[in-house]
C-alpha cells in the first residue's frame, strides 16, 4: 500500500508515519525552565490585573507568574488549580488570544502579550509531573451529588464537591470520561494522552465514583437521580449536530466534523485514519478549523473551509484562522453549500456566493463547484438528551445565578447551559461555581 496526497478517494496513510507524527506534535512546545523564567519576567505584576478579569476562572495570573519567576512553579500550579482544576488542559486549549492574553497590558503596549497560556502549562506540568494531587478533602458531609456528564463542566463540579466533603457519582454515557477534552480538542493541543492523564489525576482527590456508559436516556432518569441524591448537576454538553439542509447531504463521504475528530482522537495510529484527497469543511468555528487543519496534517491535498458569512464573522479566532492558513487550508468566505454531487459518493460540492443585507444572508445566485471527495459538516452542535420538563432557552438549559435550573435541586453548566462562551474554561468556571452553590444550599 503506498498512498500519497494525490491518491483519489478517502484513504489512509497519505503521508509517511514520521511526518504525521511530526505534524501532530505539540502546537506550542512546552518551555524549559529557563525560557519560563524569561517569559515570566515580562509580567508587570499589574494591580487588579486585567488578564485576571479576562480569565473566566479568574486565575490569579500575576501571582502565579511571579511564583514561576522565583523558581517555584509548583506553588504557581497550586494558585492555578485553586481556581481551575483543569488548568492543565486550559493552558493547552484556551483561545488565550481572545481571553487573558488579549487583555494583557503588554498586548496593548507592544502587541506581544505575556505568554500566559504557556506559562500556565509550565506550572501545571511541573506539579503534575510530581505525581501528587495538591488538595485534600474536607470532613465528609454525608451529602451525595450526582454529576451527569464527565466533560470539563462535570469534572470541575465533581472535584469541587468532593473537596468540600460531599460524595459524588459522576456519570457519562461514553465509555471514557473527559468529554470534548477526550473526543473533541485538536490532537496537537492535547498530546500524549493528556486528557485521560488529567482525569486520573483529578480523581485522586477521592470521593468521586465514576460510572461510564450510563447516561440520561441511557439507563438513567432524572427523577430517579433526584430521589437518590441530594443534588444533581447536568454537564451534558451539546451531543447533537445541526443538519446542512443541502442536496446530497446523505451521500458517502459527507459526515460530521465532530465524529471525524472523535475518531481521530481515539485512533491509536493516525496513519490508519482515512482522509479525503480534496476536503471541504462547512462552517466557521473552532470545530471547522480543527477538522480542516487535521485533514491537512493527515495529508489531504487540498482543504477548504467554506463559510457562509464574511470572514470577520467567523467564530474561529484570528489566531485559529492564521493557523489554518499556515497549514495550507484555504478559507472561502461568503459561500454556502447548495448540493453535494457524485455518483453514490461525494465528488464535488456546489457552493453559492452570498451577500449580507443587514443581518440577512442572501444567495447571489452565482455558484461554483469544488472537488470534494470528503465533506465535513461543522455548523454547530445542539443540545440533545436534556431531561423532560426542564426549561430551555435559546437551545440551551436555562440557568440562573450559579447554574440553578428551573427544576429544584438540579444545576447545570458548561455547553449545555445558557450563558458564557462554549469553551473549556467557561465550562470549568460554571461547574466550579455550581459546586460552590450546591455546597451552600446543601449545608444551609
Amino acid at each position: 500500500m503506498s498512498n500519497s496526497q494525490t491518491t483519489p478517494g478517502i484513504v489512509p496513510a497519505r503521508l509517511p508515519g514520521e511526518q504525521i507524527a511530526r505534524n501532530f506534535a505539540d502546537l506550542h512546545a512546552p518551555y524549559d525552565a529557563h525560557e519560563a523564567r524569561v517569559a515570566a519576567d515580562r509580567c508587570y505584576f499589574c494591580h487588579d490585573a486585567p488578564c485576571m478579569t479576562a480569565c473566566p476562572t479568574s486565575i490569579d495570573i500575576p501571582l502565579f507568574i511571579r511564583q514561576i519567576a522565583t523558581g517555584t512553579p509548583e506553588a504557581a500550579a497550586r494558585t492555578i488549580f485553586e481556581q481551575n482544576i483543569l488548568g492543565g488542559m486550559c493552558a493547552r486549549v484556551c483561545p488565550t488570544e481572545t481571553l487573558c492574553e488579549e487583555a494583557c497590558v503588554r498586548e496593548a503596549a507592544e502587541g506581544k502579550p505575556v505568554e500566559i497560556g504557556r506559562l500556565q502549562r509550565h506550572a501545571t506540568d511541573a506539579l503534575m509531573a510530581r505525581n501528587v494531587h495538591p488538595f485534600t478533602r474536607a470532613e465528609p458531609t454525608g451529602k451525595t451529588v450526582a454529576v451527569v456528564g464527565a466533560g470539563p463542566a462535570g469534572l470541575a463540579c465533581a472535584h469541587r464537591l468532593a473537596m468540600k466533603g460531599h460524595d459524588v457519582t459522576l456519570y457519562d454515557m461514553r465509555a471514557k470520561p473527559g468529554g470534548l477534552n477526550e473526543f473533541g480538542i485538536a490532537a496537537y493541543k492535547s498530546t500524549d494522552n493528556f486528557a485521560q492523564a488529567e482525569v486520573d489525576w483529578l480523581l485522586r482527590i477521592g470521593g468521586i465514583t465514576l460510572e461510564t456508559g450510563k447516561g440520561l436516556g441511557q439507563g438513567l432518569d432524572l427523577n430517579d437521580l433526584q430521589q437518590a441524591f441530594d443534588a444533581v448537576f447536568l454537564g451534558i454538553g451539546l451531543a447533537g449536530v445541526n443538519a446542512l439542509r443541502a442536496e446530497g447531504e446523505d451521500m458517502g463521504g459527507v459526515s460530521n466534523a465532530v465524529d471525524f475528530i472523535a475518531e481521530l482522537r481515539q485512533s491509536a495510529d493516525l496513519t490508519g485514519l482515512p482522509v479525503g484527497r480534496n476536503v471541504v469543511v462547512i462552517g466557521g468555528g473552532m470545530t471547522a478549523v480543527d477538522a480542516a487543519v487535521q485533514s491537512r496534517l493527515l495529508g489531504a491535498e487540498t482543504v477548504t473551509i467554506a463559510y457562509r458569512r464574511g470572514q470577520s464573522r467567523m467564530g474561529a479566532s484570528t489566531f485559529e484562522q492564521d493557523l489554518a492558513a499556515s497549514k495550507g487550508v484555504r478559507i472561502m468566505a461568503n459561500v454556502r453549500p447548495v448540493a453535494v454531487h457524485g455518483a453514490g459518493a461525494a465528488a464535488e460540492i456546489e457552493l453559492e456566493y452570498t451577500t449580507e443585507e443587514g443581518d440577512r444572508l442572501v444567495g447571489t445566485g452565482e455558484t461554483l463547484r469544488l472537488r470534494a471527495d470528503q465533506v465535513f459538516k461543522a455548523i454547530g452542535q445542539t443540545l440533545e438528551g436534556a431531561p423532560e420538563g426542564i426549561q430551555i432557552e435559546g437551545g440551551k438549559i436555562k440557568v440562573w445565578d450559579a447554574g440553578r435550573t428551573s427544576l429544584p435541586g438540579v444545576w447545570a453548566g458548561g455547553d449545555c447551559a445558557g450563558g458564557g462562551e462554549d469553551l473549556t474554561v467557561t465550562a470549568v468556571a460554571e461547574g466550579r461555581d455550581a459546586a460552590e452553590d450546591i455546597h451552600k444550599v446543601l449545608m444551609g
Partner: protein
Amino acid sequence: MADLTTDFLGITSPNPFWLASAPPTDKEYNVRRAFEAGWGGVVWKTLGSEGPPVVNVNGPRYGAVWGADRRLLGLNNIELITDRDLFTNLEEITRVKKDYPDRALIVSLMVPCDEASWKAILPLVEETGADGIELNFGCPHGMAERGMGSAVGQVPEYITMVTEWCKTYYSKPVIVKLTPNITDIRHPARAAHAGKCDAVSLINTINSITSVNLDMLCPEPMIDGKGTHGGYCGPAVKPIALNMVAEIARDPDTRGLPISAIGGVTTWRDAAEFMVMGAGNVQVCTAAMTYGFKVVQEMISGLSQWMDEKGYAATSDFIGKGVPNVTDWQYLNLNYVTKARINQDDCIKCGRCFAACEDTSHQAIAMSDDRTFTVIEEECVACNLCVNVCPVEGCIDMVELDKGAVDPRTGETVGDYANWTTHPNNPSKVAAE
C-alpha cells in the same frame, strides 16, 4: 570624530578605557590580545613579593547575581593576587610595554606593609619600563588577613606611609587603589593625597556574600561545604562607586586629585558618567570578564558618538564638568516643586503606579473603573516612585510648577530658591539677611 585620547598623569592612551587589575590582565597572552582588541591601557594583575607565589582555591572562586535572562548583574570573587612567579610577570610586562608604547601599562602591587618589601620590588618594576604603579589597598579577602590589601586601605596612616615609600623609591606615577569597605571614602583618599600620590583609583571590590545554597545552607561559591565573603563587582556596584568618585572629586581636601574610576563600568554611558563626575579615565574588569575584550568597541563608538553629539572635541572637555552639580542635601532648592503627570496616550494601564503610591507612598494616584490613572495634585509630593515603577519609559513626567504658582498640596506659593539652612522648621537655621 571626537578624539578619545586621554592624558592621565602624563600617560597617554588612545582612549580612556583601561582594563583593571584582575584576571583579564594576568599575563602577556591576555594583555596582548586586549591591546589588539583596542583597550587603551591595562593595570597588570597585582604582583606580590619575590618568593613562592600565593595559591588560589581549587574549587569555584566566583559567585554571581543574575537578572531573569541570566544577565550578569553582579560578580563576586575569592581570588587572590597573581599566583604566577614575580619574575615571569616582570619579563612579560617588559616585552609587552616595548611592543605597545602607545598604550598605558600600569603595574599593580601588593607587598607586606614594611619599607624593605617595597624598596625591594620597586626597582624591579621600574626596570620594566611600565608607565606607573597602582597600590592595591583594596582586596577584601585572603590578602587582608595577611595584613595587606584592604587591611592597609582601611588605615589612613598606613596609606600615607606606603605611598610615601613608593614616591621615594619609584620615579613614575603612583596610583593608590582604594577599598570601598570603609565608612567614608574621603579619609583614605586624603591619606593617599597626603602621601603625595599622583592619583587614586576606586573602587576595589565590596565585601559580599552573593548567595546561600539552600540545600547545603552554605554561602556560595561553595568550597567543600564552606564559603567565605568575597569581593563584589560588576553592574550592581556602579552606583556605589559613582558616589565615592564624586565625593572625592568635590572634597576640598582632595580637589583636583586625578581619579581613575572603577566599579561596574559596562557601557560607554557608565564611563561617561564617571568621567563627568570627575574621573580622568575608567577601568573595567567584570564587563570584560563577562563579554570578552570585544566590548571595548562599543564603549569606544558610544563615547565618541555622544561626544560628537554634545560637541566635545576631547575628553578633557567634559571630565569633571558635573562635579559642581553635586551638592549636599541641605543646599537643594526646596522651592523647586514638581508634580507627577501621567501621559494617558502612553499609559498601558498596568496599575503599578497606583499600587506603589497607594500602598507605600502618598495615595496621590486615582484609579477609575475603566482603569484610567490620574495624579491627584493635592496629594502628590513628587517623590518619583511612580516614574520609577512605571514600565513605560517617559509615560510619567515630573512637571515643574512655575514660580508664583500655588502648590495645591501645601497651598503655598512657589518662591525663589530657598534651602533647608534657612527653613523655619530647621532648629539651627541661619537667619535670612
